[in-house]
């Protein structure tokens, strides 16, 4: 099996040590970091994401794979910088103000990183201003918001409104998700995107950022 295929396979098994070792071996063998990223790590994570979407594997399997991905990325990051290769794009993400539920948001964050995005995770209980300020500061073209409670969903509208008020519409897009959130609600508040689950969120982010 080719080295990059071995990396992808080890990643699918969630074998963190093996992914780290194989990535080191690949870099040592002179393979371009961009190739190792795309054909090794991202290729493996893509399979994991698809298996998860099809419910062939479970969430903890994805998390084990993600950790293995991080082990490979840790080896690659300095090389990627040297080669001038950027990740797919930057996303600011958080659970809205008043909502402490961040497991769903964490999963989206993990899958986005696994898909090659840089994620600025603001945590939970995030004020509307904090979302927008982080997007401006980090020059992130996308804000992702999560809410688990019907009582905190209105905060999403405040963020969307604030993006408009600051004249950032079109430059900074918004995507919403979480158990009580629906596509209708997303349209109603003027969000640019909605995702019904974490796997769908990754696909929607790719589409919104033109990174498919």
């Amino acid at each position, binding site marked *: 099996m080719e080295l990059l295929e071995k990396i992808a396979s080890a990643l699918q098994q969630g074998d963190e040590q093996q992914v780290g070792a194989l990535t080191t071996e690949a870099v040592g063998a002179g393979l371009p970091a961009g190739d190792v990223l795309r054909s090794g790590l991202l290729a493996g994570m893509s399979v994991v994401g698809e298996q998860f979407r099809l419910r062939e594997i479970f969430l903890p399997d994805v998390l084990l794979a993600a950790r293995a991905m991080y082990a490979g990325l840790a080896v690659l990051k300095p090389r990627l910088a040297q080669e001038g290769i950027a990740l797919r794009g930057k996303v600011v993400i958080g659970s809205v103000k008043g909502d402490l539920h961040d497991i769903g948001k964490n999963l989206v964050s993990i899958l986005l990183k696994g898909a090659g995005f840089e994620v600025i995770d603001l945590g939970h209980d995030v004020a509307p201003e904090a979302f927008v300020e982080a997007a401006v500061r980090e020059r992130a073209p996308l804000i992702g918001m999560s809410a688990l409670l019907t009582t905190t969903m209105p905060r999403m509208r405040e963020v969307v409104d604030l993006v408009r008020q600051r004249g950032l519409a079109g430059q900074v897009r918004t995507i919403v998700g979480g158990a*009580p959130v629906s596509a209708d609600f997303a349209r109603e508040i003027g969000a640019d995107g909605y995702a019904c689950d974490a796997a769908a969120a990754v696909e929607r982010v790719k589409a919104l950022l033109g990174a498919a």
Partner: protein
Amino acid sequence: MLRPAARHVVRFAKAEALPVTREILEAQGLPEEDALAPRLRTLLDGGIAAYSALVEPRAVCEELSYARFSSVLEPLAIPDEDLVVGHVYPRAQALALFVATLGEAIPARIGRLFGDDALAEAWMLDAVASAGADLLAERLADRFAETLAERGSADLRVLPYSPGYCGWPTEGQRPLFDALRPEEIGVTLNDSCLMSPLKSVSGVLVAGDGETHRFRPDFQFCSECRTRECGRRLAWALGRG
């Protein structure tokens, strides 16, 4: 209304706060225990072991009158008929405010695990703890039912209702905390009315017959709810669950 019991701190044995494995797995959409892949079994065992070592379950509880509970809802300026709990509590035979927590050690460990990129381990511990926090509220409800039975009111169905759910805004925690003062068990509110430690639960225990808990799920917020947990709760209250 029965003679109210005074505010008191409730201590639980660790074992009382340990959720059953089936519920932990179900909540994550994982297969049943005997069909679990070895690596997931290892994760589950690790999560339960960490939880059991770290959990410090405790609660504070106080029985209160309709009028006093009404004063807990009043600052929200939401008509009772627009809240599930507002709809239910006037039919109750007894009410008790509560705040329960698993303690600080578990959320701290979860945070460290996420910080160390031990994602699956963090996730599993969080799942065990979420089930544990729900269980703690159920344990309190059981104890309240036992107390009421000792006072002659047997066969009451006690269910917890919490701010953040079924139209009761999280801001409702402020007057609840003012009334109950749970700082004694180490639970505080931040500016957004969120509890610290994270794995804590608050609300009111509503005791009555099964019909006490019945309501038509046609509130405005019901259309946005995907869990429909109320159906399971009502089935239990009516003795069908």
